């Protein structure tokens, strides 16, 4: 489940350089300068059609190459060909990638290949006949769910191995968008499962940024669901005699259920998390940025109907896809949210931090935050 290089400049004993301990694979460093050129060369000769390799040899060679250098695109591409021709199980590549990431958590080619494999798997899923390669048994939905969960794990591990791992978090977002379709359930699940992780990595801006992405997706989701619900209601009012049938009732119920996302509560919890972490770990800019933006979202919670109208406000050049990212003027024009405890609590919090903290950076961030609060909220 993990690979690594064992620093060992000379072969002292006449034995294999491969070390396997507790399911972790190690390779003594002295052998790499022989092994890598050898397999690299073999693969290139194959590609140049100067030397034939059968499928099994190809699988072995590419596997070895990629564990030594996962950014070797050609090797991943050979495996793509094997997958497309049906001789290689795509799940093996997910496993190979996972292993490579334990040593090379940023490897761009590994993440790119991973997304290709996942796309192949979802396409397979949508085919009516699913009896292939004995990796099924579960219903398509559950299969996707398991894939998503596994990807979340892989991303989490990789993020832990390298600070602010842009590629890992990018991938995580991609999976939510393309495999999990950004359902409310998955967004809420992710919020709760990453809460612990970000608390343990308070300077990891990417991690907190991910939470912003989750919150913003939830906000967007609620707005669309609200609109769908409103449209359905209008349709019903106009055609009371219309038979809705199972499907119609189903989607409405689903919308109603999804609508039970308590957005203000989520944002409130997020502010609480920020406050707690800022108190416990003084001087982390990331936490203050996160606080800024969460408060910003709090005051534009679309749980109120104001926002649906506010979205059309001002003929600004901005496209509607930038819902959460508005200009100062647009913010100030919006109607205030019912729960006005927000700003007062924030002022109290900031003042408390300023009077009790001894960390220079913390004081600076707190002062800037206070200034921002005054400009943004003060009237």
């Amino acid at each position, binding site marked *: 489940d993990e690979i690594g290089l064992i620093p060992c400049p000379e072969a002292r004993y006449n034995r294999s350089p491969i070390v396997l301990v507790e399911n972790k694979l190690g390779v003594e460093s002295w052998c790499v300068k022989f092994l890598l050129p050898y397999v690299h060369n073999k693969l290139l000769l194959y590609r140049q059609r100067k030397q034939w390799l059968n499928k099994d040899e190809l699988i072995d060679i590419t596997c070895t190459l990629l564990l030594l250098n996962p950014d070797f695109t050609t090797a991943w591409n050979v495996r793509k060909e094997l997958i497309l021709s049906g001789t290689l199980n795509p799940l093996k590549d997910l496993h190979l990638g996972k292993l490579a990431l334990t040593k090379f958590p940023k490897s761009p080619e590994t993440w790119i290949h991973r997304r290709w494999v996942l796309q192949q798997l979802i396409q397979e899923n949508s085919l009516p006949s699913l009896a292939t390669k004995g990796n099924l048994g579960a219903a398509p939905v559950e299969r996707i769910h398991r894939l998503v969960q596994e990807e979340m794990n892989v991303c989490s591990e990789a993020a832990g191995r390298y*600070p*602010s791992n*842009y590629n890992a*978090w*990018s991938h995580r*977002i*991609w999976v939510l*968008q393309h495999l999990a379709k950004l359902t409310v359930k998955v967004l809420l699940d992710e919020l709760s499962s990453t809460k612990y992780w970000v608390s343990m990595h308070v*300077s*990891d*801006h*990417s991690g907190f*940024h991910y939470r*912003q*992405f989750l919150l*913003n*997706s939830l906000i967007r989701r609620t707005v669309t669901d609200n609109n769908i619900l409103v449209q359905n209601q209008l349709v019903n009012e106009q055609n009371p005699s219309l038979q809705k049938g199972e499907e119609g009732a189903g989607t409405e119920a689903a919308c109603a259920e999804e609508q039970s996302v308590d957005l203000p509560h989520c944002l409130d919890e997020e502010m609480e998390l920020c406050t707690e972490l800022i108190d416990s770990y003084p001087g*982390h*800019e*990331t936490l203050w*940025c996160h606080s800024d*933006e969460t408060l*910003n979202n709090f005051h534009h919670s679309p749980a109120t109907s104001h926002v649906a109208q506010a979205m059309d406000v001002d003929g600004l*050049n*901005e*496209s509607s*896809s*930038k819902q*959460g*990212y*508005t*200009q*100062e003027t647009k913010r100030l024009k919006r109607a205030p949210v019912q729960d006005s405890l927000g700003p007062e609590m924030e002022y109290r919090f900031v003042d408390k931090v300023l009077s009790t903290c001894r960390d220079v950076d913390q004081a600076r961030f707190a002062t800037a935050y206070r200034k921002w609060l005054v400009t943004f909220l003060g009237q």
Partner: protein
Amino acid sequence: APFSRRSAYCAASVASLTNILTPTLFAGTAEWIARCQNWEGGIGGVPGMEAHGGYTFCGVAALVILKQEHLLNLRNLLHWVTGRQMRFEGGFQGRCNKLVDGCYSFWQAGLLPLLHRALHARGDPALSMAHWMFDQLALQEYILLCCQCPAGGLLDKPGKSRDFYHTCYCLSGLAIAQHFGSGDLHNEVVLGIPENCLQATHPVYNIAPEKVARAVMHFLQYPVPSLDPAS
């Protein structure tokens, strides 16, 4: 789409310099780039992702070439990029809460001339006519004092080894920091001895401004090639 901001910038650069820029070639590109501007104000790799110096420069420069900078929220972008200059080191970081890196001397600082021009075009009265909106001297200090390898070449930060990429972008950033504007408005701000002064670089293409002018003039002589297979 499996198509990155870097490619968009490269394509736009080449197309504009060689006079093959047509509306159809980049249809939808500007909107797609703008969608990647996030709440932080910078631009990320894909919509929803964290703002990142490299992607932001490529995105903004491409938009400048396509004359569509107004699709971005320029104030948020300005707020984000100015926040990336490190108050102790003087150099720039690529993203919030990360370490300083010499190459961002260009990717981040290079955004300020672009923003200056865009805001000026809007008639913003608060713009300086002598300086960019970042601490030019502090950046020069970082590059000259911390990013030089004694054996020649430049690098990311002390302790790292030199490479061509960092040499290129540290020098590019230095040039940006030393030269404000051009023509009548040209203002040089050079740290240390006058010999430290580099030639100015074009903030969009990062090659000498005269070269940009010559390329454009040269290719303007030729018509835009058509895609008709017949002729």
